[in-house]
Every structure is written in structure tokens, then in C-alpha cells.
């Protein structure tokens, strides 16, 4: 930055000591929020130019970095520092599996080798998500043994003709890499959302965003499977699910799996746009856009552009009419907070949100708990109840490490858990 003559600095300093009354907090706030009319704004600026104290107040009163600003600044850093690491994860995964493959080579299952060497021409896309998991459980060791060859030499054409196990295997190959690079991403987002703060939410998520976009195509196959039955609850499943609200059609993901396997470097260039087009989603550079959620001033908000803009989500509008009846009943049962019944039944004050892919849970005051299984398009009110009790108090914390298992903490000290996506609840 250029320097100004020192005498200017000195005279500026001398003048910087006004004794006139300071603008009151209302005016300073309106100034900071750019809602003053021009003449008033100029008057405040004039005061600020002579008043170190008010400048300091203004600086201290700045809000935390806004989500949009954070998004703008962080990706640059992440691009500079992550590319090498990103591919290091991919190659580390491949190397690890190669070693494992060689070690296990002696125990190789002949029948599977036969299957691999003379693959049936059947298309893998349709049945793969359903058939794969069971097969994978039984055969995973064998598949992993045959993997090194596939990872290095397989071509997209060849993959198309390989048996389902082989494709499944490809996901295993890519899985460690994805897991490694995403390990701190979406999960943190969820934690921060639950704490009702958006301060660190974006930075914590964004550094991983480019990696997410480039490496997601391979695991999407995993995720489409995960949504259906995968009770092994592999870490990747939930992590990926949180980033990919809508599973890719199996055919699209298979194609990408092949490419990812044969030429990792090509994935960034080819696989992502293909996958995104299939989904009909918007694309910015190579970054994948998926809704992120937060609770701000008691309102539930969703951003589908990585936090640049946030839209209020009106849960009550799309919730069943039956829900408000439930709500009313719940209130009368509780016998307290009844005075706020009307207000809250129309617009609940939210305290926590947890998202797991398309599964979104939001909770707030007076036992308000809503669930959406389609990334927020439709909402249903959920009233956790066991034989003896119903959820009461304010929902303070929601934890959904995966789609099935969840945990709610309330202001009354109750803890409720579910292991079946909210179908049944247990009070602890």
C-alpha cells in the first residue's frame, strides 16, 4: 500500500479527537448495515473520520465473516494446497490395496478368476446396486486381490463387460481416497449446524469442496447402495451421502467408476460434468453444489450455492396439516408453553439442524421436530414418543451420524435415540 506524507498522518491524528456527541448505537448499526439515507450516511462518515472511538466500535461490531465472503476466499487457498494431497490420497489407496492384493494372492479364489477372465456380457448397471452388497460381503477379499490389475489396466470398455463384482471392486478402490480427503468435511458441517452457528460452517466445509467434486463420482455408486440397505455403515457412505443429496442413476455412476479406475487424472475433466449433467444439477467450475443447512435467528435456512445465499425454509407450509394437530396435542400434554402455541405452530423457532444427504432433521422450541427425506422439499412433523413419554422441551441438539441412527437432546435433559430413521424412538 502506498504511504502518505507523514505530516498528513500527523495532522490526521491530531484532528482525530472529536468531542461532539457520538452517533447513537442505532445510527451506527444502520450505518454498518448500509441502511442510512445518503445525507445521514455522510454525516456519520464525517464523524467517523475524526473519531477513533466510533471507528473502533464499528470495527468491533462487525458481524462474523459472512458465509459468502468465506466461500469466496477459502477455495483459492484450498486449490493451492490440496491438489497434491488429493492425488496422494488416491494413490495411497491404490498402493495399499495393491499390497493387500499381492499378500493375499496365494489364496486367490479360482472361480472368481474364471469369472473375471471370461466376463459375462450382461450389462451391470441395472442390477448392480441391489446385487452388489451381498456379493461384496462374501467376496470382498477376493475382489480386492484381483484389484491391482483392474485399477491399472482396465479400460472403460472392458469395465462395461466385467461382472458386477468387478465394478463393486472399483468402488473399493476409490473409497479410501474419498474417505481420506473428506474425513473432516461434511461431518463438521453438521456439527456446526447443530450448534446454531454459521461462523465456521462454511470454511470448515469449503476447503474440501473441490476434492468432493472431483472424487465424488466413484463413490456415488456406493451411496446409491447405501441409501437402500448398507447397514455396515461404512464411513464413506454417510460422508458422501451428506454431500450428495440425490443419488446418481446407477448407469451414470458406473461409467464414472470405470474411468476413475483406469485413469484417475481424467476423472476431474470428464467424470464430474457427466455426473452432474445426469443429475440435472448446477455446476460451478468443478465444485458440486449441494444444499447446506443452518439455523439462523430461529429460522431454518438452506443454501444451494455453497452459502452465498440463504433461503428461509418454511417447514410449516409444507408439513402435513395433521402435524399442527399433533403439535397442539403435544402442547396440551406438556401443559406448558401453551401461550406460545399459536406462534410456534405457524413458525417454529429452530435451534438445531442435521443433514445427511437428502435426509434433513430440524428441531426447535417446544418439541418441534421436522424431517424431510427429499432435501427439504417436503416436511413432516415427527413427535418422538415411547410407551411412557413424549418428547418435551426444546430440541437443542440433533445428531444423525447416518441415515438410520439419530440422537436428540432437549432442554429438559431428555435424550432420545432412533435406530430406524425415526420410525421408533427410545428415551434414555
Amino acid at each position, binding site marked *: *500500500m*502506498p*504511504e*502518505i*506524507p*507523514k*505530516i*498528513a*498522518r*500527523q*495532522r*490526521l*491524528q*491530531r*484532528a*482525530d*479527537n472529536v468531542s461532539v456527541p457520538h452517533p*447513537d*448505537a*442505532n*445510527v*451506527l*448499526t*444502520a*450505518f*454498518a*448495515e*448500509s*441502511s*442510512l439515507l445518503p445525507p445521514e450516511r*455522510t454525516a456519520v*462518515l*464525517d464523524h*467517523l*473520520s*475524526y473519531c*477513533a*472511538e466510533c*471507528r*473502533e*466500535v*464499528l*470495527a*468491533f*461490531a*462487525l*458481524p*462474523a465473516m459472512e458465509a459468502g465472503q468465506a466461500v469466496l476466499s477459502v477455495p483459492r487457498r484450498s486449490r493451492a494446497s490440496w491438489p497434491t494431497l488429493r492425488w496422494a490420497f488416491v494413490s495411497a489407496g491404490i498402493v495399499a490395496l495393491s499390497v493387500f492384493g499381492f499378500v493375499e494372492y496365494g489364496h486367490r479364489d479360482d472361480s472368481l478368476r474364471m469369472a473375471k477372465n471370461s466376463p459375462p456380457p450382461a450389462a451391470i448397471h441395472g442390477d448392480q446396486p441391489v446385487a452388489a452388497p451381498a456379493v461384496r460381503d462374501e467376496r470382498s477379499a477376493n475382489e480386492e486381490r484381483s484389484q491391482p490389475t483392474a485399477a491399472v489396466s482396465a479400460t472403460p470398455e472392458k469395465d462395461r463387460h466385467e461382472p458386477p463384482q468387478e465394478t463393486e471392486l472399483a468402488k473399493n478402490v476409490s473409497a479410501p481416497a474419498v474417505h481420506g480427503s473428506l474425513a473432516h468435511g461434511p461431518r463438521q458441517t453438521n456439527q456446526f449446524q447443530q450448534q*446454531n*452457528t454459521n*461462523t465456521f460452517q462454511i470454511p470448515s466445509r469449503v476447503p474440501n469442496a473441490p476434492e468432493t467434486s472431483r472424487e465424488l463420482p466413484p463413490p456415488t455408486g456406493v451411496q446409491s447402495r447405501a441409501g437402500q440397505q448398507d447397514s455396515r455403515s461404512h464411513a464413506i457412505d454417510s460422508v458422501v451421502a451428506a454431500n450428495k443429496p440425490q443419488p446418481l442413476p446407477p448407469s451414470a455412476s458406473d461409467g464414472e467408476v470405470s474411468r476413475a479406475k483406469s485413469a484417475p487424472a481424467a476423472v476431474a475433466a470428464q467424470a464430474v460434468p457427466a455426473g452432474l449433467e445426469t443429475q440435472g444439477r448446477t455446476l460451478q467450475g468443478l465444485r458440486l453444489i449441494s444444499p447446506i443447512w443452518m439455523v439462523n*435467528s*430461529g429460522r431454518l435456512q438452506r443454501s444451494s450455492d455453497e452459502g452465498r445465499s440463504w433461503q428461509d425454509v418454511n417447514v410449516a407450509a409444507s408439513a402435513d396439516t395433521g402435524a399442527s394437530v399433533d403439535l397442539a396435542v403435544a402442547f396440551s400434554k406438556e401443559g406448558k408453553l401453551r*401461550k*406460545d402455541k399459536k*406462534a410456534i405452530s405457524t413458525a417454529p*423457532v429452530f*435451534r438445531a439442524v442435521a443433514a445427511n444427504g437428502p435426509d434433513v432433521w430440524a428441531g426447535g*422450541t417446544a418439541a418441534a421436530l421436522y424431517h424431510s427425506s427429499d432435501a427439504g422439499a417436503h416436511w413432516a412433523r415427527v413427535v418422538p414418543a415411547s410407551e411412557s413419554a413424549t418428547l418435551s422441551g*426444546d430440541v437443542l441438539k440433533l445428531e444423525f451420524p447416518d441415515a438410520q441412527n439419530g440422537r436428540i437432546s432437549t432442554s429438559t435433559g431428555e435424550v432420545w435415540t432412533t435406530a430406524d430413521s425415526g420410525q421408533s424412538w427410545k428415551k434414555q
Partner: protein
Amino acid sequence: MSSHTPSPVLQSVVNELLPDLHAKASCEQVGLTPQSFSEILLEVGSKYSASASAGELRTFLLSLRVDELALARACARGNNAAWEIFLIRFREKLYLAALRIDREDSAARDLADTLYADLYGTSTRDGHRVSKLASYTGRGSLEGWLRTVLAQEYVNRYRRTKRLVSLEEESEEGLQFAAPEAQPSAGADTRLEQATDEVLAQLAPEDRAVLAAYYLDGRTLAEIARMLGVHESTISRKLDKLAKSLRKQILAGLTRRGMSRRQAEESLEVDVRDLKVDIRRSLAQDSPPGSFSEKTVEARVREGEG
């Protein structure tokens, strides 16, 4: 409540907008009747301007954050439902804001608690509790207002403490450097100061504010940009332009005051070197933390070498 009688114009505008604003503000939720909300609007309106036209007043009233205004004023009147909503919405945020101002946890809590005491209204006037929330007028967001009030409290408190510290520092450092400042030298120096003051006074308020924030307070471009609600690059360009024009204009002012070009340039340089100590001292004493920033020091070192 305002002691002034609101102007008839204001009264008619408030009466006209009251039903809409009352509904928009969800006053019922927090127990504010149309009558009491009307009083609040009249008070806020009179504070804004006594001579504004009906159109201006309408724009002003419509720009208010009436929902937050109603909430704050209902809290000030001791409405429990309002306090419940207020605490849910702002308790956590207030503490986080305090923590951003004062990184130390217990100090931040203390700061937030002090503000809470003011918000509840610990002092009494005519037997009534006076809540600080009664001074919120809805011109900015309630959250922003709370942060500003918090910052004011902190700055006041900090300045009180700092004054004590600086006295000690002063006695350690000795007061010998105060003399040159107290006795402005005659001739060239006065002309230089006059010329500089003239140039500074002619600057647009925003330019001067940017200069002060950057060179005196040591704020970053990003901080200044956020304070003024403009883009960082605007501030950067502005500073570039100002730095170039300041020197030129001071020199021109000196020439107008009868100096030759060379004299003017010399006096600018000479004076700068003489004044270094003063600046260092006065900056360290009167300015907020960070004002004696690295770039100030660097600049000074460069200046010394040159």
C-alpha cells in the same frame, strides 16, 4: 417515551401505517397493543427528524425493522413472552459477539453479562426500571444493535483501563518528547501544517475516514471495506489515489503559501523526520490497539533510510 409532542405530519403518517406495521411486527405475540405500538412509532419518528416531509417519514417508518422493534420494546416493558423469544434468539449470539471482541472467555462472559444487566434494566427512573432495549429504534437489525452496544461498552471500559496504563508507561518513558509537540515551531512548520490541514479538511468524509482507519487504526483493507459496506478493491483504489494526491496537494498548498517547489519538498521531508517521535508517541497513546501497526513502523523505517 419522547417528551416532545410529535408533529401532526408524523401523527398522520403513523396513523396511516399503523395497522400494517402493527401486523407486520407481530405485536400481538409480545403483548403490544396498537396504541402502545403507535406511541413507540411516534417516539422513533420524532427522534429521526422533526421536520421531515410526510413522504420521508413514510419511507423511514417502512424501513424500520418493526418486528425487532416490537420485540425489543416489549422486552423493555417486561413482557415475559418477549423475553423468552429474545433469549432464544440472541443469548448465544450475544455471547459469541462478546467472545469475538474479547477473546478471553471469562472477560467475554463478563462483558455479555454487563450488557444483560443493562438490557434487563438495573437502574430505575421514577420508580420504573429502565431497560437499554427501550433505546433501540429499529433502524438497524436488533442483532447488529446488540453488537454495537456491546462494542461501545467494551471500548468505554477498555479506554478507562488504558488511560491508567498509559500514565504508567508515560512515567517510565519520560515526558521529554512532549515538548516539541507543545511548542509548534514557527515559519515553515506552521505553513506545512496549515497546508496539510487544508488538504485534509477538503477531503470527502469517506476518504478521510478511510485514511484514518488505514493509517491511524491499522485496519486491514478487508476490515475497512466491511465497515463501510463496499468492496475491498474500492478501498484499495481509493487509498492509492489518496496517497498520490495528498502529497501533490500539500506541495501545491505550500507553494501557494510562498514556498518554492524545492523548499516545499524539503520542508515536507525535514518535518517528517522531526516529527517521528511525536507521531510514535501520540499514536501509541491515543489510538486504539493495532494503530501502531507493522506497516506504520515499516514506513517509518523506510522514511528514515530515505
